[in-house]
């Protein structure tokens, strides 16, 4: 026979105002298996907790129901209290008679009756609770950071400075990401490279950071604290240990007309190339698609000229395995392109704007390269078609963004600011020129942001026109931009020398493949989803995986850096203990009855269930059954509700517990059915047993 204690709280008057607490206690005392039932004004106070603790000792209770507020409020408090009295914390449950009863109902008979029934329900559950112990999981104190943009760099440096090893994987030949491409940054107009390159150098030389550039994550196995990662080091065709980065090979390479990714096609590069002068590592890579040796079988000019014999045409992809405990995903963004063959086939472009057809229609990142001192023009604003200085430039905002008919509803967040910056950079270099901006709304919330936009308008004279552009077409030397100014109601036609499109911020094309390998969820646009939009913004629902930067949604540099540091601190919290404790609400398999239908394996959202072989001593396979990995299981119970043979149950929410809760509620004292049924319904204990 169970010995349950029921403790009914008045919560001052919060409960007792509408519920007769003394009656609830008295009625609870009559429930079979209840050894003691008491009511008290404030159960969560010190004397209230002492009352519970004393009762546990005095009556040798094996279960406690605290009938008070929501378990979300005080479950921890009472579980701690019962632990102090020597009872397992999972033998304590709360009946929610405040939020679910006294606060939402009037003072009347059914309200008190409901409170009694809620207590009874919990008593029936607690009778079947089992003493559980938190699950302990070992933690490998190393981190994997995926993506070497500013977010990945920041996260890697923070974790490394915290004293733990970091594996930083970057798919491109150099770290730096998009920030390395920028000219100057808003709202301070400090030079992007000047603030980023020192961090890139730190990442390359930090004793705790192992840098894999030109590499990709191939496979991920395991779970929080114990991930096993396979990294594919793509064949660089250059031995980076022998190479000194002198750059002779680039000078001699005869294949010179490949559009540079770093300069976004505004400049050409060679087939063997260092992406940009400040690259880390400053070592070249051979682009095998364009290399004459790899395409035609002869050339090897670079190999001949290399003073250290670092060029290695025989190099192949290499796979390395690393063990890590936590993962920071910082894969960043790319820009939606408006031409027909963009990287996002699911989205419609803006054919009427002529991007990709007219060289003088460029996107925001291309303008960054034009304005950058390290760019193709050395920082002079020259239009791509003929190198002339544009006398007027039209900037169009919200290209793709906030445009449901193009498939994108979100605001890209950074374009208002960078367009304002572009107009300033342009005006600072072309004093007599005019910058026009077509905008929908100016969104500049942020420290010093709105002031910055005002400066662009008021001091640098950018002409802001609220409205959309219908068409852009070439007329002789000029581009004609036809649009509407919705504030004056006039149709506008501008003769422009260059047009800059602020295209939407999108996740890296194809990034969902990586997210699927990681087992993390993503939204309709393929941005990674956080565990909670407000309270857990840097964690994934999958434990041990954290998000940083624009892979989660459009972000500017300060936000990306802040989130990266937050993700790093989450990883450091994970690494601060040798073992983690987890709630023991996990699924368990009854191997005797499992019929190996594998529905649970398929349905588990956390891939926590696998197939296990049961063998005899000779090693012969006897049967195969499902096996739950308690470190991965989060306790949702979907498997338990799916199992065909009732072989999986969820600790803390077992079938037995739930059925006894249902039994306890029903057909008591009410003439629902004719006599025989009523008699049957009146003994829930026996029924459940």
């Amino acid at each position, binding site marked *: 026979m169970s010995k349950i204690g029921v403790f009914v709280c008045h919560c001052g008057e919060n409960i007792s105002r509408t519920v007769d607490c003394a009656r609830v206690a008295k009625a609870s005392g*009559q*429930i079979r298996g209840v050894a003691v039932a008491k009511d008290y004004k404030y159960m969560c106070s010190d004397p209230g907790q002492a009352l519970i603790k004393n009762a546990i000792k005095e009556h040798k209770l094996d279960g406690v129901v605290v009938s008070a507020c929501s378990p979300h409020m005080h479950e921890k408090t009472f579980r701690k209290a019962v632990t102090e009295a020597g009872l397992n914390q999972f033998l304590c449950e709360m009946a929610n008679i405040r939020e679910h009863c006294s606060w*939402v109902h009037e003072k009347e008979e059914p309200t008190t*009756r409901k409170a*009694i029934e809620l207590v009874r329900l919990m008593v029936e559950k607690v009778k079947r609770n089992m003493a559980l112990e938190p699950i302990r999981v070992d933690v490998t104190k190393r981190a994997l950071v995926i993506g070497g943009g500013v977010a990945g760099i920041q996260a890697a440096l923070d974790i490394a400075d915290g004293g733990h090893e970091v594996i930083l994987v970057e798919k491109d030949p150099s770290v730096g990401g998009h920030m390395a491409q920028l000219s100057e940054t808003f709202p301070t107009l400090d030079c992007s490279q000047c603030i980023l390159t020192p961090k890139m150098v730190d990442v390359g030389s930090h004793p705790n950071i192992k840098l894999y550039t030109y590499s990709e994550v191939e496979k991920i196995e395991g779970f929080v604290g114990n991930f096993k990662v396979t990294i594919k080091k793509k064949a660089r065709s250059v031995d980076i240990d022998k190479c000194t980065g002198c750059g002779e090979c680039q000078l001699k390479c005869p294949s010179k007309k490949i559009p540079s990714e770093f300069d976004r096609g505004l400049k050409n590069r060679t087939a063997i190339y260092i992406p940009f002068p400040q690259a880390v590592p400053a070592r070249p890579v051979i682009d095998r698609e364009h290399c004459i040796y790899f395409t035609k079988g002869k050339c090897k000019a670079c190999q001949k000229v290399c003073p250290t014999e670092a060029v290695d045409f025989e190099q192949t992809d290499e796979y390395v395995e690393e063990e890590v405990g936590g993962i920071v995903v910082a894969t960043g963004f790319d820009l939606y392109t408006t031409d027909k063959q963009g990287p996002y086939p699911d989205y419609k472009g803006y054919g009427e704007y002529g991007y990709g057809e007219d060289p003088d229609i460029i996107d925001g990142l291309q303008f960054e390269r034009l304005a950058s001192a390290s760019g193709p023009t050395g920082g002079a604003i020259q239009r791509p078609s003929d190198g002339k200085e544009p006398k007027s430039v039209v900037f169009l905002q919200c290209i793709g963004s906030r445009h449901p008919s193009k498939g994108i509803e979100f605001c890209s967040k950074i374009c208002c600011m960078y367009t304002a910056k572009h107009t300033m950079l342009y005006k600072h270099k072309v004093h007599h020129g005019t910058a026009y901006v077509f905008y929908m709304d100016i969104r500049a919330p942020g420290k010093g942001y709105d002031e910055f936009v005002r400066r662009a308008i008021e001091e640098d004279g950018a002409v802001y026109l609220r409205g959309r552009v219908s068409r852009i077409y070439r007329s002789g030397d000029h581009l004609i931009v036809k649009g509407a100014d919705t504030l004056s109601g006039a149709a506008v036609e501008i003769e422009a020398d260059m047009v800059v499109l602020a295209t939407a911020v999108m996740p890296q094309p194809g990034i969902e493949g990586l997210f699927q390998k990681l087992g993390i969820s993503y939204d309709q646009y393929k941005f990674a989803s956080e565990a909670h939009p407000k309270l857990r913004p840097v964690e994934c629902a999958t434990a041990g995986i954290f998000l940083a930067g624009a892979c989660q949604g459009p972000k500017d540099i300060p936000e990306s850096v802040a989130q990266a540091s937050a993700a790093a601190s989450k990883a450091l919290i994970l690494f601060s203990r040798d073992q983690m404790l987890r709630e023991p609400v996990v699924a368990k398999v009854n191997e005797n009855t499992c019929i190996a239908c594998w529905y649970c394996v398929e349905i588990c959202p956390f891939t926590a269930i696998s197939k296990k072989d049961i063998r005899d001593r000779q090693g012969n396979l006897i049967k195969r059954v499902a096996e739950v990995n308690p470190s991965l299981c989060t306790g949702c119970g979907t498997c*338990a509700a799916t199992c065909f043979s009732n072989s999986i149950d969820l600790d803390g*929410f077992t079938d037995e517990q739930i059925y006894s809760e249902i039994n306890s509620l029903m057909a008591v*004292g009410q003439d*629902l059915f004719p006599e025989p049924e009523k008699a049957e319904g009146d003994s829930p204990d026996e029924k459940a047993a």
Partner: protein
Amino acid sequence: MSESPQSETQKDGAGLPEAATSWEPRIVAFICNWCTYTGADLAGTSRMKYPPYVRVIKIPCTGRFDPLFMIKAFERGADGVLVSGCHPGDCHYTAGNYNARRKYTVFKALLETLGMDMDRVWFSWISASEGGKWVDTIRKFTEVIQEKGPFREYREMIDVG
């Protein structure tokens, strides 16, 4: 209130001192811990009011909901069953609510074939911020059940079967 608690305990095994004098609707709500339970908590902290005939059984996720729970509840005299969890896409466990929906859709078709009155089974998405929606749902559901009265048809259905 009875003067002899001992005999009463034996009588109904539950220590309910008083039974309702007339019929009252009995609604069982299976709600997930993360969204709807918290939403119902919010209704409480906001002091919204709804009829006191709903009994909540907390499950971690609607994915844990086994349609047999519903059958059991009806068997034990419930007049209505509500299942409620996180909105699609908001599941704390990423996909539990999708599984619940799928299971419910299939099971619903089966029960309809058997002649079950499906107006007595409600399925809803109520997030942690939708205290008002919880209250509206319970009010409306209670009204519907009150109008329909005790679920005698279920008993008849079982007896015939």
